[in-house]
């Protein structure tokens, strides 16, 4: 219920409309009241007395009544659906904004499909409840409030009887509630799992196909769907049983009224028309209990959905701006790691005791065996994660004291896996800098040695990538990612294995251009092909989370160590050949 009131707080900004909706609900309720009385009048007064003219009035009244009722209920429905949609909008906006604020660690731990389920499906469920069951519930409650006095006023004995059956229903309802609730939660979870698996397998279809696993995947998918199926059936069974109970109770109640009512009519204590009207009114009493079943399904679903939506909203971003964070306008690009220890899991450090000082404008290469922690190291500069101990400083300021946006806007980061979006090539390049001019975009593409390729496409820079467009080769993607990074004119550029899919010639072209573009900027380059990095000002050699050596290429090959081994391994053939050439 706590979540529920939280949901209601989303209605606050629309107070006026809510008030209006409530007002309209009251009116709709009131318009429901006269009809049974009109029938009563016809039966008890007009018909026995043969008042023809009264019938004309009745006709007019009914038409008028429904005209009014229709207008009001139209307005009500409109207001409600507006409110429902608006809440969906607000909730989605908030969730998405919040998810965007959460740090990478949040994404590391969750399947994309599941995050989507929260932003889309859960919120939809909540909306159904608001616009559907919730409104009916409120109208029903309002009706009850009005109808109960009315029936007591009409005939308290009958009214009393009709109310006695209600507690039985409430007891049954209570009995079922918990189980229905549990099932709804399970259902939501299964649905999540389904979406997660679906997203992953569709995105990873290449692997599925490469191993000819289509049938296996279909079977696995079926298992998930099957789970959804049986849970859905169980839930339906519970709800329907409750529905039967409600119907029976209603029938018994109505039957009792007729019984008692007949006695009263025959004893001349009640008019027949009154009895009919009475039965009409207690419909308003019992119908809600039947409807409550439907509302219940929705409410349980929505309850489970709300839990999850609010859980997301309550997840604290691990990385946020400190309250007194400063903005660095023109970053110089000095980077320092001071005694840095870092682990993705607290008790399992991936980086230990890192000390590294990089002067602005230098090219720093990071090499080392796979899994040594190179990516982790550069991830700390852009503050994708926070250090466990020690500090990372940019221009002498701890990154935790600088506004995130001002760091990331001035760092160009090309990740190991190039991610492009399904928009045109131009938009992809300009992703980091929407104001870039056409010339700048073309220049960036030229620098990344991609311009010629783009021009060879019939649509040039307007070629769409991905959906309804072309697919690029991996090397082309890498170059596009580089172009995208340089276009933001970063003060620090980080290339994480960003040229691994380029042949040496293309790579050399890109490097030359980068040297020019990145003059005076700090560069971090991670590469396994040593020819990529021999010219770096500083080569940092990492192994198992530690820096084991620092120096220039010449210095490092001169002494035994990790770097020398890597070098020998990679250039063995060349050395052998050169030697044999020399010798013979």
């Amino acid at each position, binding site marked *: 219920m706590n979540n529920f009131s939280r949901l209601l707080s989303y209605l606050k900004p629309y107070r006026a409309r809510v008030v209006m909706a409530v007002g309209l609900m009251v009116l709709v309720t009131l318009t429901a009241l006269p009809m049974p009385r009109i029938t009563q009048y016809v039966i008890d007064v007009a018909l026995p007395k043969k008042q023809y003219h009264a019938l004309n009035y009745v006709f007019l009244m009914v038409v008028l009544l429904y005209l009014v009722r229709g207008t009001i209920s139209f307005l009500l429905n409109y207001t409600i659906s507006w409110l429902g949609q608006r809440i969906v909008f607000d909730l989605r906006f908030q969730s998405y904004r919040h998810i965007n604020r959460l740090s990478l660690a949040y994404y590391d731990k969750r399947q994309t499909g599941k995050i989507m389920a929260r932003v889309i499906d859960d919120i939809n469920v909540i909306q159904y409840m608001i616009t559907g069951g919730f409104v009916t519930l409120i109208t029903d409650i309002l009706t009850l409030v009005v109808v109960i006095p009315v029936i007591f006023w009409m005939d308290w004995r009958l009214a009393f009887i009709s109310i006695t059956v209600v507690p039985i229903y409430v007891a049954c309802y209570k009995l079922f509630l918990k189980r229905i609730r549990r099932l709804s939660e399970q259902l939501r979870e299964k649905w999540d799992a389904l979406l997660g698996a679906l997203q992953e397998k569709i995105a990873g279809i290449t692997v599925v196909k490469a191993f000819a696993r289509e049938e296996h995947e279909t079977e696995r998918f079926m298992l998930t769907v099957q789970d959804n199926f049986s849970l859905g059936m169980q839930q339906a069974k519970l709800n329907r049983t409750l529905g039967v109970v409600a119907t029976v109770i209603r029938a018994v109640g109505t039957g009792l009224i007729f019984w008692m009512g007949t006695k009263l009519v025959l004893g001349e204590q009640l008019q027949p028309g009154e009895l009919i009207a009475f039965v009409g009114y207690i419909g308003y009493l019992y119908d809600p209990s039947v409807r409550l079943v439907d509302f219940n399904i929705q409410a349980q679903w929505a309850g489970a959905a709300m839990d999850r939506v609010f859980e997301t909203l309550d997840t604290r971003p691990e990385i946020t701006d400190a309250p007194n964070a400063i903005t660095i306008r023109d970053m110089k690009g000095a980077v320092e790691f001071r005694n840095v220890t870092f682990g993705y899991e607290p008790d399992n450090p991936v980086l230990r005791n890192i000390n590294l000082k990089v002067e602005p404008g230098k090219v720093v290469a990071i090499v080392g065996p796979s899994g040594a922690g190179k990516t982790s190291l550069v991830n700390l500069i852009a503050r994708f994660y926070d250090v466990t101990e020690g500090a990372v400083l940019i221009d002498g300021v701890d990154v935790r004291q600088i506004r995130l946006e001002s760091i990331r806007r001035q760092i160009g980061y090309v990740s190991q896996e190039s991610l492009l979006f399904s928009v045109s090539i131009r938009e992809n390049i300009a992703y980091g800098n929407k104001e870039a001019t056409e010339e700048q975009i073309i220049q960036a593409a030229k620098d990344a040695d991609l311009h010629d390729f783009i021009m060879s496409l019939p649509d040039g820079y307007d070629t769409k990538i991905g959906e309804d467009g072309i697919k690029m080769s991996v090397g082309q993607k890498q170059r596009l990612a580089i172009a995208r990074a340089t276009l933001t004119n970063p003060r620090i550029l980080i290339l994480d294995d960003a040229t691994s899919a380029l042949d040496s*010639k293309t790579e050399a072209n890109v490097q030359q251009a980068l040297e020019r573009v990145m003059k005076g900027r700090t560069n971090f380059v991670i590469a396994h092909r040593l020819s990529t990095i021999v010219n770096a000002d500083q080569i940092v050699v990492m192994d198992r989370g530690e820096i084991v050596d620092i120096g220039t290429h010449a210095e490092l090959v001169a002494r035994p160590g990790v770097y020398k081994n890597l070098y020998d391994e990679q250039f063995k053939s060349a050395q052998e050949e050169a030697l044999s050439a020399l010798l013979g």
Partner: protein
Amino acid sequence: MRNFFRLLHEVRRYWKVLLLIGVLTLMAAALGLPGPLIVKYLVDHLVNRQPFSIFAVFCALVGVAIASGLVGFALTMSVTYLGQRFKLDMRRKLYGHMQTLSLGYFEKNQTGKLMSNITNDVATLDQLIGGGFVTLVSDLVTLTAVLIIIFTMNWQLALVGMSVFPFYIANYLLHIGKIKSTADDIREERDVMLGDLQEKLAGALVVKSYAKERSEVLQFVGQNRSLLNLNVRQGVLGTRLWTIAEFIGSGLGVALILWFGGRQVMQGNLSPGALVAFVSFITGYLYGPILRLIQLNDQIARTNAALRRIFATLDTEPNIKDRPDAIPLPPIQGAVRYENVWFEYEPGQPVLKGINLDIKPGMMVALVGQSGSGKTTMINLLQRHYDVTEGRITVDGYDLRDVTLLSLRKQVGVVIQETILFNTTIRENIRYGRLEATDEEVEEAARAANIAHVIEGLPRGYDTRIGEEGIKLSGGEKQRLAIARAILSDPRILILDEATSALDSETETLIQEALEHLMQGRTSFVIAHRLSTIVKADLIVVMEKGVIREMGSHQELLQQGGVYAGLYNQQFKVALDAIQTEGAAA
């Protein structure tokens, strides 16, 4: 409507359930009729103050209610079953079909949209089936029965009651077109949003590194705003249709009946009880079903878009499929021939132009060349993800198009350029290569891929989960897992498409040694830019802009002094220089 009939065709399969539902519906409809008649009996007796058995009336009322409650229970349960079952089968069908489609299809459709097809579209259909579709039958039955009853009770009054029908229909026709087109717009807009959302969530790293969160949120808000407007519009249209319908039915219709029926009672042509029953028949059993029928139409309109998309998916023929007379490829030796192969992804833009290549079983072939020159494409063709535009590719003399896909892909193992792992344990990820492999074999493969020591160093070892609720691996670790997975599949032809680019040379050499041993006598293709990876290859194929420029062993190509030699000198310049100076010094 055509789609709708096709849907009926799909549903036909469940004829048993449908039959049951039909019977139950009839019973439910029949049980609905006595109510007003009992009331009529009661009222007539009351008005005339005639005594009667109250107990019998009570029993009749409660009995009928209990019976209809139970029938209702059975009915809704079978309807739910039908709906759920339908969803289940439809999802299987869609997903299964998508799986048969070739890679090209997935490249052209955003993941989010495909997901939406399987989840949302099918759910929409279920709403139709579980909702209006079933009441359609019961409503039609009720309608007929009630019409008969009221016409026998008093035909003039029945005619009066029905005189509002035309307005009903006119109202419906006026609205339906707009509702339909709005429904289509909503679907489309929603898909765009889903597609974008999926992509941006999967690409969170890029969004974050450009500090683009705010603009992404803004874009999302924009999409949601138009969705909001469309939905509100849809709501308005629907409510208007409904409200007017209710006014015509419950308002105008009942007013007419009271007016005309009242006269009939006064003239003694009708009993007061009959009038009451009339009103309750008309509102509860005539206008109600008609309202629902209208609603059903609205639902059909909403479902139409979903239907269209589902059938569009089901109608998409896989570009690549087995010929009817395709034979399973027998265990192969691994001789691969490209004979004058031309290929284009987009018509008019050839990516491979006349490739001729003859590979003997057991050879290690290296593909090198500029980025975008068509190396991956060569591999894609060998796996028959696409069909050649011209020429042919044979394996052991079998044209790839003459053998079944399954038998081909089972014998070709690839490690693709961009590593994809799934969200499960490390063990399951490796085992994906061969599902029936034992734990020992899995570990064996991990050792060959030089990843075993990393895995064993993890607290939960092979049972460590990757991704959700698990760890993330480094680029090189992922590549090694992918290699282990391919090794485990025990392929006759192994393809490594830059599968070691994120590995340091030492690790790479270790893996290569293991592979050399494992791939004894099997054909392998290696694509790499780091030439040290491929110097040992039996044949090096140098590609440029879709043609083969040079071919030969490392030594031969160096001597030729062409493209390869250029690449080589560039990459090994440092070492060569160093040795030169050393040599000079010595």
